[in-house]
């Protein structure tokens, strides 16, 4: 699955960044520099894929 970063820049300059296809913490590594260069990060939410990945890991450990 290719790594993808979608950056949506609003007409007021506000930016929403969404990542898909990353494994582990690599998505945060990929966007950390981007977020820092742009300004102040207001909010970060983890997507469903992340929670699914955690559940799978927990099942595997049982």
């Amino acid at each position, binding site marked *: 699955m290719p790594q*993808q*970063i979608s*950056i949506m820049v609003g*007409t*007021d300059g506000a*930016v929403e960044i969404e*990542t898909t296809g990353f494994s582990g913490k*690599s998505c945060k590594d990929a966007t950390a520099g981007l977020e820092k260069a742009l300004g102040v990060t207001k909010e970060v939410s983890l997507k469903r*894929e992340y929670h699914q990945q955690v559940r799978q890991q927990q099942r595997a450990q049982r």
Partner: protein
Amino acid sequence: MSHVSKVDVSFTDLNEIKEACARIGAEFLEGQTTHRWFGNWVGDYNTADAAYKHGVKPEDYGTCLHAIGVPGSKTAYEAGVIRNQNGTYGIIYDNWCGGKGLEKVIGQNADTLKQAYAVVVAKKQVQRKGFRVVEVTKDDGRIQLLATK
């Protein structure tokens, strides 16, 4: 892992402000330390976004580090690039009558400039990380950068 983050954009890089100006058709007037405005403060603008409520003294109105203008216009007001107290750059301008044409170029509240700046910065950052970038302008004016690798 995947995530979504929201970022408030602030101007931190002068070269990228210049590139944003070029992108929207504004003229970056490097080293011009005054910018065209009404000329003297008459104390008639006091809303929350008034410059004096954000650390700019009324006696400093009209002064700046660099200016941003409308190419070919001798009547449009100009924006001033100033240094904020937190080290970032700020954009200040007289918004009377849309800055007499300035807002047609930089947008109300300099939003068009902010959008262009965010696009310039974001594109460079992801390209540096080896991503290919496609830019799409949406019908509602938002700009999406799709970066893949």
